[in-house]
């Protein structure tokens, strides 16, 4: 019973703390905007700078850094282990969070060994080239809706989004393809056979999956009639048949699946971690010491966060709280409603990060031919078919209800196939006995 209450408490506390975080960010952004305008800067500059610092630097970096610990601790929970717990402060390991400091210290104080035959400029450039694009992607993600705020009697409109540019999704594709430079350069510049293998694998894999990544989102573009992420999020607030929110999840389940898989391949994490392949070639960063490796490593986790954010924005309703939205909108002051929206978005991001870690610890690594086959023979045709079918359905019924119906049918079909009993494999009795002997000493 106590455990159950704990679970409920946890389920309430996480979104609630995210809401408070959203409120704090709104407050800071509005303050920065007020400060900037009173110093004579053009409107929205202050808010943009505050957003860059708070959302991109603070939120993304903190989440990515915590995910490095989360990956170890959560994988331990999945595998019935304890995980890192040896660094204790006042006898408390606090979920291994202190390993963050230990890791940073270790990375920063490691001896800086550089391969003598490296290509000097590119070698130094590669970690940055891997780090920066994944960061920049977050710029177009709308974290919270625009809201009027009054600071010292001056009314300004602030939104938790760094840049609301017209070509939002095209920006995402463009910057995402830049990420391949980091890995390819790292592999090339290290002048090592294993690193170049990793770099080549990374570039071929990422370039292949970019195709299906782009095509998977075309359906959403058509459905929401926009490339701006902010407008796509807004469009997901409309109701189908008066009750079902028009989430990308309902309208584009196939698009979601293809996008998620392709984006997973872009992050280069298991099951698509051939560029790294710790057990075989170690990967494109094999020659990188200390914090340079740390940057390549962290870039991966930043990609995880950004991927979660984009998926949440396009397919899971962005900052729409979805549940009780009308009630919340009526009963809360606008700024608190906006904070709830931001909290909902951040919670969705965290959940999707968690989902990615779960997937990463579920599946083993693909073989390289399987990766290419999955991309060109499965995902690409499916994405193309999705584009055509979505287009036809929108042409027939611009109110999206037909699209929603087909989407629901697709989801139901997927659920039925998934729930269908798979073949039971007969495990011989002595295998059970052996397993029991291991488990029970």
């Amino acid at each position, binding site marked *: 019973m106590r*455990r159950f209450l*704990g*679970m409920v408490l*946890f389920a309430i506390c996480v979104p609630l703390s995210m809401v408070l975080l959203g409120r704090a960010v709104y407050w800071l952004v509005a303050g920065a905007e007020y400060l900037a305008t009173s110093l004579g800067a053009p409107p929205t500059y202050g808010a943009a700078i505050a957003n860059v610092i708070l959302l991109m630097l603070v939120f993304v970096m903190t989440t990515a850094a915590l995910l490095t610990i989360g990956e170890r601790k*959560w994988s331990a*929970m*999945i595998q*019935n*282990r*304890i995980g890192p717990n040896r660094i204790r402060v006042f006898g408390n390991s606090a979920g291994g969070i202190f390993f963050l400091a230990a890791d940073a210290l270790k990375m920063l104080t490691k001896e800086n060994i550089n391969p003598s035959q490296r290509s000097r400029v590119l070698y130094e450039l590669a970690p940055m080239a891997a780090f920066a694009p994944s960061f920049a992607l977050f710029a177009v993600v709308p974290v919270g809706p625009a809201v009027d705020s009054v600071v010292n009697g001056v009314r300004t409109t602030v939104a938790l989004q760094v840049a609301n540019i017209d070509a939002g999704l095209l920006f995402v594709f463009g910057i995402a393809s830049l990420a391949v430079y980091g890995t390819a350069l790292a592999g090339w510049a290290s002048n090592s056979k294993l690193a170049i293998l990793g770099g080549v694998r990374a570039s071929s894999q990422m370039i292949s999956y970019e195709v299906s990544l782009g095509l998977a989102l075309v359906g959403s573009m058509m459905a929401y009639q926009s490339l701006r992420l902010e407008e796509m999020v807004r469009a997901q607030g409309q109701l189908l048949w008066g009750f079902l929110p028009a989430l990308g999840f309902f309208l584009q389940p196939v698009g979601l*699946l293809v996008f998620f898989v392709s984006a997973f391949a872009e992050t280069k994490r298991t099951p698509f971690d051939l560029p790294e392949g710790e057990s075989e070639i170690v990967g494109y960063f094999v020659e990188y010491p200390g914090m340079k490796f740390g940057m390549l490593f962290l870039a991966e986790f930043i990609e995880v966060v950004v991927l979660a954010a984009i998926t949440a924005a396009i397919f899971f309703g962005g900052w729409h709280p979805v549940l009780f939205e009308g009630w919340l909108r009526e009963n809360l002051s606008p700024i608190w409603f906006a904070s709830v929206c931001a909290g909902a978005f951040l919670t969705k991001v965290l959940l999707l990060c968690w*989902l990615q870690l*779960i*997937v990463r*610890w*579920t*599946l083993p690594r693909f073989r390289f031919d399987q990766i290419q086959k999955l991309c060109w023979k499965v995902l690409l045709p499916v994405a193309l078919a999705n584009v055509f079918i979505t287009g036809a359905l929108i042409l027939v019924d611009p109110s999206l209800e037909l699209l929603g119906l087909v989407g629901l049918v697709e989801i139901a079909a*997927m659920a039925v*196939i*998934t729930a*269908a009993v*798979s*073949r039971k*494999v*007969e*495990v*011989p009795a*002595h*295998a059970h006995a*052996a*397993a029991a002997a291991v*488990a029970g*000493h």
Partner: protein
Amino acid sequence: MPYQLPDSELNLRERLYFPEVIQGVGIIMKQFLRNFFFGRQKDPDVLARDRSLSQNATIAYPEERVPYPPAYRGLHRLVPREDGRPRCVACYMCATICPAQCIYIEAGEYPDDPIEKYPVKFVIDELRCVVCGFCVEACPKDAIRMDTGEHAPPSYTRAAQVWDEKRLLRGPPVSYQNDPWLRRGSPSISPEKLQEMRARAKPFPLNATDEYAQTPGFSVRALASEAKGK
């Protein structure tokens, strides 16, 4: 796991791949939530831990230890009598059988009891010992045992790994009813002490019992009844 699973063609549903992946993700999620919300059992009696909620199987080693079974061969000890002297009668059986020839014994006589020998020096080189347990088997007096449940502790010098009678003589004392010094008495043992030792003496056991358990809390009987229950 050394067993064969049937190797057959994948059916269409399995070749779709995603249904199986989603099922697998579901299993992993369940496992995660289970271990996330239910903490690891911290019962110091590690064998009594309940794994029905959290399945965390870790035993945090230096702080928690799995008890060794009675047959485990740990560090040697020379078994003392109740009066503090070793049970050993310096018969050289152990030194003779030792395949590593790592036991060195010098025999002496008690000045007050000339029919009884005792080891003036009894040295085991734990670095040469192959932990075969032959010395324990060979001893006619149950005077040397490997029931400490310890590993030879690490040391910085080789000399510290050579254990002499002063370090070896430890642990709970043991008396048997057929011990000669109890049956005939001995001038080296005071009459009251002799009385006490006779009262405590047990028949020589033919099978391992809980008294042989090397770890507190470890029960041979509980283990046996558990095995019978299964």
